[in-house]
């Protein structure tokens, strides 16, 4: 019952937000902005830039809210808008160019069972180049398929795969470095 009520409430709030009800818009913003800033932060190292991107993405959310079909979760819909905005920001601002690299081998993480803090994980991802980072985030965290990533980034599917393997390899190295650093400090 509670879930149904919450769902109905969300739909009502969305309908109000479509009618430019600022209160409803603020409710949606305050509900999703912390998570969405986190999503943007995955792609953009600078928190302020991530926040700027998040704001523009929320603008798109509210201007296109009437197009939301209530198929799938509202959060998922907002999240996709956030990711698209982050990707376009990175590609425009940083002019990321993907080198067509079909030569790759399936990179896999070594036996890493140690627990990392979110800050460590973010640090590791931040250390990746933007191209690697995007593919890694989209594939590992968002669960996109290579075909989807290829169309989203305008690259070949093979390039997406090679980018991911490079990203994983680099992460592996960074994790071992981090571990060594932690061990060294211990």
């Amino acid at each position, binding site marked *: 019952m509670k879930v149904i009520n919450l769902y109905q409430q969300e739909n009502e709030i969305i309908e109000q937000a479509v009618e430019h009800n600022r209160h409803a818009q603020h409710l949606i913003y305050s509900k999703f902005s*912390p998570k969405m*800033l986190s999503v943007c932060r995955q792609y953009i190292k600078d928190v302020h830039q991530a926040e700027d991107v998040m704001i523009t993405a929320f603008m798109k959310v509210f201007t296109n809210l009437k197009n939301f079909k209530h198929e799938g979760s509202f959060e998922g819909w907002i999240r996709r808008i956030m990711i698209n905005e982050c990707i376009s920001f990175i590609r425009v601002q940083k002019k990321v160019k993907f080198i067509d690299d079909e030569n790759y081998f399936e990179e896999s*993480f070594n036996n890493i*069972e140690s627990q*990392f803090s979110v800050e460590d*994980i*973010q640090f590791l991802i931040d250390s990746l180049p933007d191209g690697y980072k995007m593919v890694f985030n989209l594939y*590992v*965290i968002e669960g996109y398929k290579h075909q989807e990533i290829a169309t989203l980034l305008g690259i070949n599917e093979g390039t997406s795969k090679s980018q991911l393997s490079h990203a994983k390899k680099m992460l592996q190295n960074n994790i071992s470095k981090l571990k060594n650093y932690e061990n060294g400090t211990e």
Partner: protein
Amino acid sequence: MKMAQNKLETQIKEKLNSREINPTEKAWDRLDAMLSVAEQKPKKQSFKFIGIAASVLLFLSIGFYNFNKNKTEIQTIENVVVNEAEKEATQENSSINQNNTQNQKKINKIINQKTQQLVQINQNQKVNISNPLINKDTEIEHQNTEVIAQKEMPKISFQEKIVQQKTVSVNVDDLLASVEKPTKKETKSTIKVNYNSLLSQVDGELDRTFRQKVIDKIAKNYQEVKVAIANRNQE
């Protein structure tokens, strides 16, 4: 191995997805400002739309006005024709009136002649020395004759008979004196009578001629306008 991979990947996924970063308070204010700007834009667009619609209407109306202007010009020409025709008609009227007045003058002359005849008749009657009473009577008689004269001129002979029947002796000078003044009245009154009767007689003829002439003129001018329009269209 694979489990470890998945473990690390799932760990990264879970930890990042469960993370929340609170945006700064200014972030909402900025979004609020952007939203209000975005909401004003559609209004401006609607104003623009109204402006475009208004300008289109304006141009259409100007075009329509210019298109109809030709028609109005034609109408004015027709009006002028009618007015000219009316003027001519009025001129004719005035000429007819002149004729009327001339006729009236002629009639007045006839009346004067008749009154002179009356006087002569009276003179012919052997009249006794004047009495003031008789004078009054004669005046009354004259007035009667005036009235009768006003109504129907051809029946003056009958009036004469009446006068003769009454056989009153009148002083010639008095008669003359009394007659001179009424004759003036007669002229005035006869004008009225003749004017009305003449008008009533002439009105019918006038109307006919006026209508015919106006219709002719309009027909002529209509043909001229038709030709002019045809020429213009050909050009």
